[in-house]
């Protein structure tokens, strides 16, 4: 075994070119040369691709040959390749926690593409910081935690159903939670699917009933997740199962109750085109196949007023006093399959939706043409219940629009309209169909064929989005005004009915889901995946996976594919039954601790036990500690050590940054999950910002103690940034509220000391907000340019005590 902790330090530094990704803007040879000159560095080399097998072999050989006991790789973000290099070190017999990375690609070369000098200087600093930290690294040993072999699937659309079935078939226990009275989701509302024109409910219904009767699946409909705690492998979930007022097991779905119910309400499943009773089943194939009472509609909550259904029910299944239940579940993995809503086009007043009867949305169309729908599958227009002879489809309603609706392409509307056009032609071949489009995106397997079929069946495709729909008040016919952009002429097309092909939007309650599972959203409002290419179904929160449209608009096939992928990812975790957790938890030095209890108060996980009355020192429950470091930042006596993110290590990084030209630099403390990832995202998107910033990573912004910030100023730094996740989006429940409190206190303190408080900035930057990060640095460049040498000197003097 290599001498790891004591004795002579022997550090190896490996500078990666990443092809031209780094070498294009950073002089990698110069950086390597610089590294070689640093104390304790015994070996330094540069390599075109350090992550390649030969690249890793060099590291492994050097560990053996040069007896390296610390390894530093300067390349991409640790969020990508830290596991790779840790493994390489481990293979060569070095404890993986003695490895450190300098992020000279995502946070250097990519964001300073045209400033080779600045980028190279920054890369040298980043390497120096990494070496400084590496010197103080100590071996850590990961503990294993058990993984509960149960899954929570949130959302019972086709994605949720598929994920639940895949896992249940592998013998894992699954709880499927759905907020509606039945599973089935949007797919149940659609008539046919593209490109094969299968009947949607015909292929979905068997899956729904299979999910309903699978011995490994517990179905909780009319239910919502209320609380999530715990961590990968060991989540605790609270689910509110709202009262159905009908006993699911007793109800035979005979429908006698609905026959006598006097209340009539718009049926949500038919998008308001038909009515239902206060006691109802949303659609014929509903699972569970049991009625439900909507108590807001029911007259029976005052039993004297009405109780007709109770009298009628032979099985006595109806109970007005049925209570809501709060269920507690323990699960190891979670699949988020919360789906989408459709865009409401009312705000696009020029199309007259809700003003003109014969303007409908594509989802309403699905119900109208569906045999189980309100018109029994007869396409009739709402104003006079006649079969329309001319139909216009308008594409991109609420999609690809910066002003109204959403800027993104909704992915499915083109194909859905093409399918709809063929459905109409199939039943009423004489119908004249005009499709007004911007671009037809028929990119999937079998899509182009369907498009061609539609065109050859006589459907007119007219390029250009309509400017306006007008109504003839007498006939209720519609006039679609549109530039035919192929000819440049403005045309008016009279149609009997216009169908707005509406886009997909994140569900209304996606904010709640985001908070419950500490997820991030991309700018379009859908959940952000852990890595867009390589971990497309993993959430950034470990143990949580995505299926279906929650992660982005997609069609049924992609939703099902993703669901199976998510199930497989969750299965891999649960099959092992245990998982190693990073050795980054807190350790209390009981000799120093005076049992003041502050750490326990700020711990978001209640992972610290302390008896303040009897002065029994604090004690960390390791399995519960997530390693945010808030306790360590709060402890006034330095009695808490955060493993792998110790005060000494972080201070050494600050020292390294501020050794030369501190007065021109920004020291940025960024949390691993959001702001550090946001800085990486700025890199991936090649957003350019000034090179004066040096980022120091911690797991949570809650880790950044007062002393760390003051130390940076004491060392002459021009400005300091503390950046974390948005409030309420913290990956450690609410630890960033402590950050906020601490920085606000620091501002006061700085002011008192006569130091410009603008030099300390606090920013909430999510993993998707690369632009925000870049703008923050641009803003701070303005601040540091204004800070005078005198001011910095004064700061250093004031803090010197």
């Amino acid at each position, binding site marked *: 075994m290599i001498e790891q902790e004591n004795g002579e330090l022997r550090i190896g530094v490996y500078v990666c070119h990443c092809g031209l990704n780094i070498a294009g803007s950073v002089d990698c040879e110069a950086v390597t040369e610089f590294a070689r000159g640093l104390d304790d560095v015994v070996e330094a080399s540069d390599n075109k691709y350090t992550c390649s097998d030969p690249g890793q072999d060099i590291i492994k050989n050097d560990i053996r040959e040069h007896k390296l006991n610390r390894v530093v790789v300067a390349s991409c973000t640790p969020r990508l390749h830290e596991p790779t290099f840790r493994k390489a070190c481990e293979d060569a017999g070095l404890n993986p926690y003695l490895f450190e990375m300098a992020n000279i690609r995502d946070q250097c070369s990519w964001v300073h593409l045209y400033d080779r000098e600045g980028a190279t200087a920054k890369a040298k600093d980043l390497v120096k910081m990494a070496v400084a930290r590496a010197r103080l690294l100590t071996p850590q040993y990961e503990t294993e935690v058990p993984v509960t072999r149960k899954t929570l699937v949130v959302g019972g659309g086709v994605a949720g159903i598929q994920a639940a079935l895949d896992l249940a078939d592998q013998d894992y226990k699954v709880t499927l939670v759905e907020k509606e009275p039945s599973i089935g989701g949007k797919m149940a509302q659609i008539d046919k699917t593209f490109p094969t024109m299968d009947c949607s409910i015909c292929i979905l219904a068997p899956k729904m009933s299979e999910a309903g009767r699978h011995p490994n699946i517990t179905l909780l409909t009319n239910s919502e997740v209320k609380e999530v705690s715990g961590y990968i492998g060991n989540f605790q979930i609270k689910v509110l199962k709202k009262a159905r007022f009908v006993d699911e097991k007793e109800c035979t779905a005979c429908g006698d109750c609905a026959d006598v119910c006097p209340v009539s309400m718009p049926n949500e499943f038919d998008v308001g085109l038909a009515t239902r009773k206060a006691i109802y089943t949303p659609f014929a194939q509903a699972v569970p196949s049991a009625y439900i009472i909507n108590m807001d509609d029911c007259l029976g909550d005052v039993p004297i007023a009405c109780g007709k259904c109770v009298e009628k029910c032979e099985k006595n299944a109806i109970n007005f006093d049925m209570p809501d239940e709060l269920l507690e579940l323990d699960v190891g993995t979670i699949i988020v399959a919360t789906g989408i809503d459709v865009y409401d086009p009312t705000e696009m007043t020029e199309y007259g939706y809700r003003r003109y009867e014969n303007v409908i949305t594509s989802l309403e169309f699905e119900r109208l043409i569906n045999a189980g729908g309100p018109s029994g599958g007869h396409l009739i227009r709402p104003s006079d219940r006649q079969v329309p002879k001319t139909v216009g489809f308008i594409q991109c309603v609420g999609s690809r629009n910066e002003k109204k609706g959403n800027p993104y392409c909704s992915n499915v509307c083109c194909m859905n309209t093409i399918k709809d056009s063929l459905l109409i032609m199939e039943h009423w071949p004489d119908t004249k169909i005009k499709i007004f489009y911007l671009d037809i995106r028929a990119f999937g397997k079998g899509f182009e064929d369907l498009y061609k079929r539609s065109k050859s069946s006589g459907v007119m495709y007219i390029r250009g*989005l309509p400017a*306006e729909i007008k109504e003839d008040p007498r006939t209720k016919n519609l006039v679609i005004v549109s530039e035919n952009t192929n000819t440049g002429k403005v045309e008016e097309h009279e149609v009997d009915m216009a169908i707005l092909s509406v886009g997909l939007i994140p569900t209304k309650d996606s904010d709640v889901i985001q908070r419950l599972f500490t997820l991030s959203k991309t700018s379009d409002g859908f959940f952000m995946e852990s890595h867009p290419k390589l971990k497309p179904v993993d959430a950034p929160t470990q143990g949580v996976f995505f299926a279906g449209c929650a992660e982005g608009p997609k069609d049924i096939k992609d939703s099902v594919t993703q669901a199976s992928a998510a199930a497989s990812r969750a299965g891999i975790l649960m099959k092992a039954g245990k998982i190693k957790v990073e050795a980054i938890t807190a350790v209390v030095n009981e000799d120093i601790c005076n049992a003041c209890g502050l750490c326990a108060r700020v711990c978001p996980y209640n992972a610290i036990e302390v008896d303040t009355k009897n002065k029994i020192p604090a004690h960390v429950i390791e399995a519960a500690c997530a390693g945010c470091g808030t306790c360590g930042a709060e402890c006034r006596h330095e009695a808490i050590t955060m493993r792998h993110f110790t005060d000494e290590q972080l201070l050494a990084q600050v020292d390294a940054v501020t050794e030369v030209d501190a007065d021109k630099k920004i020291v940025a403390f960024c949390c691993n999950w959001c702001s550090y990832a946001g800085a990486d995202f700025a890199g991936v998107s090649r957003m350019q910002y000034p090179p004066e910033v040096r980022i120091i990573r911690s797991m949570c912004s809650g880790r950044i103690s007062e002393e760390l910030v003051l130390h940076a100023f004491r060392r002459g730094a021009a400005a300091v940034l503390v950046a974390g996740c948005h409030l309420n989006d913290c990956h450690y429940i609410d630890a960033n509220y402590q950050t906020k409190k601490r920085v606000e206190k620091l501002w006061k303190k700085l002011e008192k000391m006569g130091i410009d408080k603008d030099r300390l900035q606090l920013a909430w930057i999510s993993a998707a907000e690369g632009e925000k990060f870049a703008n923050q640095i641009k803003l701070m460049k303005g601040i540091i340019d204004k800070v005078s040498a005198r001011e910095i000197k004064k700061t250093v003097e004031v803090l010197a005590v």
Partner: protein
Amino acid sequence: MSAISDINTMEGTAVILDEIVRQAYQCLECGRCTGSCPMVELFPNDFHPHHLLSDLTKDPEKVLKGYELWFCASCYKCNKRCPQALEYPYFIMQLRGLALAKNGVVPLRKAFSRIRTIIPFPVSFLSVCIHPERINLDPSIIDKMHRDHLSQKKKDKFPESGPKIAVVGSGPAGLMGAYELRKMGYRVSIFESQTNPGGMFSRAIPEYRLPLQIVLDEIENLQESGIEIRPNTTLGKDITLDQLLIQDFKAVLLASGAHSCKALGITGEDFEGVYTTLEFLEELKIKKKVINAKTVVVIGGGNTAMDAASAAMKYGAKEAFLLYRRTREEMPADMNEIREAEKNGVQIRYLEAPVGIHGVKSKFNQLECIKMELGEPDLTGRRRPVPVEGSNFILEADLLVIAIGEKPQIESFPEKIATGKDSTILVNPHSMETSIPGVFAAGDNVLGPATVPDAIIGARRAATGIDNYIKTS
């Protein structure tokens, strides 16, 4: 984007042009601008908004030399519909400034010679729609065009034997409709409720934007083609629809506009010193009244509100506040109008609404307001303003203009006519025929307060509709 004053420097010009071209590249070519543009309907061979954008990406200098630039009437429909949110009318305004500085007035003259073949009141139209005052266009150039138009106008002689048509209202819609019908050979009589013809042209557009004399000259010129105007005759009061039909008018075009100002519905609206927009603008224009009020408050967020507030500043107010109950995001006024009002020194206050008008001896002196916040979006997608309880405050002022929108005077319409939202008349979008056969409508009484080019195209359609109606009945 850079301010328009940058045009004075070479660098400024290049920066503005570069920025516009950069934005022009973002066009998705969906055609919603062209489809919604009323000027395309009037000048299909001269103007094409989205092609102009693509020309800009190819050769911006050529666009600056072209006459196409001068057709946009700044109605902002394109901007409201552009999925890329491009502010087309603002580009055009800036380009016109650049074009004037670089290439002089020749392209404008060429455009004008086209415009006057279609629009019978071309100088009024230009003055209102291209905003010469915003692009530093010398007023003498407009004067010259006006004189040329009057002298060059061929005295069209149309037959005197055609059927008689009655037009109600002599605003842009009425005049356009009358002219088109006259060209087709009909004998046209316009019934105008005011003494001066011209509708909003002569009542509401501030004098600094459009001198009354220009309007009257152009109408006089138009009358020479054989159109009769009967002033001081109000439909529903001085004459009824039935009487018109008895007098042998074969069809009627209702172009009576939207002159009924909406009221706030709070106390004190009848106080001295409280005006509706129309009253206020009319005072300024016709009675040539100079404002001796120090502080003017305008309530509303539309183009008319902006015009009233700007006019207040132009005509002597020390300060003018504009109160709007939502935020700038939701404001219905066009960006150009908001910019212009701000440039004129109007102070726009968002999220504030009036709750009471106070005064001494029925003379207004205080406006009680309340702060608002935005709630859930309403059906039009705009977030509903909700009052913040207990946030009342007093605004001292001596003149109040209520500019929260106008609607047609429903009381003047024939009883049987079908109307829709905000008392507007429902018409067949092709023929503009109302629910009463033989009665057609165009302009603001169909659209609600809208723009001059929209009134014109409606009237043109109605004229064709009437022609078809008469030929087939």
